[in-house]
């Protein structure tokens, strides 16, 4: 199973490498399609990782229970 929590920092790094890899001419066309496909999947995961749901501020009490601010 792949890691549930995607590290965006690493993902961005990997995406930069993907773009660079696509620039290489010594890879085969098939390889470049494969790299592109992987890149698109990674992009999708990144978008999901940003998890665009607005969050409310939670306040903790002494017992570590939280309620909305």
């Amino acid at each position: 199973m792949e890691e549930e929590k995607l590290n965006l920092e690493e993902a961005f790094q990997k995406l930069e490498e993907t773009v660079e890899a696509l620039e290489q001419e010594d890879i085969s066309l098939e390889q470049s399609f494969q790299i592109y496909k992987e890149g698109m999947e990674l992009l999708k995961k990144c978008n999901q990782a940003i998890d665009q749901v607005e969050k409310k501020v939670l306040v903790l009490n002494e017992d570590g229970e939280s309620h909305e601010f």
Partner: protein
Amino acid sequence: MQNVYTVGQVNSYIKNMFAQDFLLQELSVKGEISNCKYHSSGHIYFTLKDNKGTIACVMFAGNRAGLNFRMAEGMQVVVRGTIDVYERDGKYQLYAKTIEQDGAGALYERFERLKKELEEQGMFAPEYKKPIPKYIRTLGVVTAPTGAAVRDIINITSRRNPYVQILLYPAAVQGDGAAASIVRGIKMLEKKQVDVMIVGRGGGSIEDLWAFNEEIVAQAVFDCSVPVISAVGHETDTTIIDYVADLRAPTPSAAAELAVYDAALALSGLEGIRLSMLRKLQGRIRLERASLKALEAELKKNSPMGRIRERRSNLISLEDGLNAAMRNRITKDRHRLAIYIEKLKGLSPLDKLNQGYSYVADEGGRTVTDINRVAVGDALSIYVKNGIIHTRVMDKRLMDGTKKEC
């Protein structure tokens, strides 16, 4: 005669006067400590003095919480308490409730001492600094639940990235128990496994910010497994936790900027990468197409059809050449022939006949060129331009060698 009073009455009267005085009930007195005695009962007796005089002081064991350092001879202190009369001795005394080292100077000294101590312990060492993760999901905040600091942090976070979860531990940031409250907050947020935490408060006096200079707070920040950004006061305020924290932010607002990535920027970055990938792939396809085309042209150039065509055209041009050479040859020969004809014409005997010459043949048709070949009476034919004359030899005469005509 005036009234006469007992000693006890006078002392009681004075005590009562003191008791009615508003100022004497609660005042702060500064001076230098002398004759300090820590009594076994827990009470502390000492004298405060300055260059003008002295005042006797006592701190009862029940008030010892108001003293958080060990007093020593010569220290400058501020004693807060009540002035009251001790009737038995007819003396007034300062009953201390709190004793603090005097002024900013003392606090600064404490600050410098702790800073030096912690630095020597290696708590500020860069190798212990944890990197601040760039893309966080949960942000812990230890600060007062009211005031500008928490508002700034919430505003900036929700503006930059409303998708980050803020967990706030509402801490007491000044006054009694502030340090302990901050420590609890740090520990609880660590347990909640936030990605990064901001510990701080808004601006204030050095006394207001003091909790952030306490060793227990510094230790908690140092021990915390979650990266901590300190954000105490304004840019110019520096506290001990600024040195211990993994990152120091000049203000709470700045801390939020440092902790929370800009979601819009990240999303547009992703879009940029997507477009870049697409362009690169399309470029690659274009490139492959172009090289395919070049190969196709190359192949066509080298195909057998091409060679056949080439040879055919070679053949045609050879044929043309051959024909041309032939025609040329014929023309030339015709020309040469014409020249011969002209030449022959010039040599023709018939032509000579035209010029008044004739020739003679014998009966056998042989041309007569020798006198000895004919005899008198022979029939001869004389050929002239426009006919033949038949005649007979009537006479002949031999002439010696000389030719008279040609």
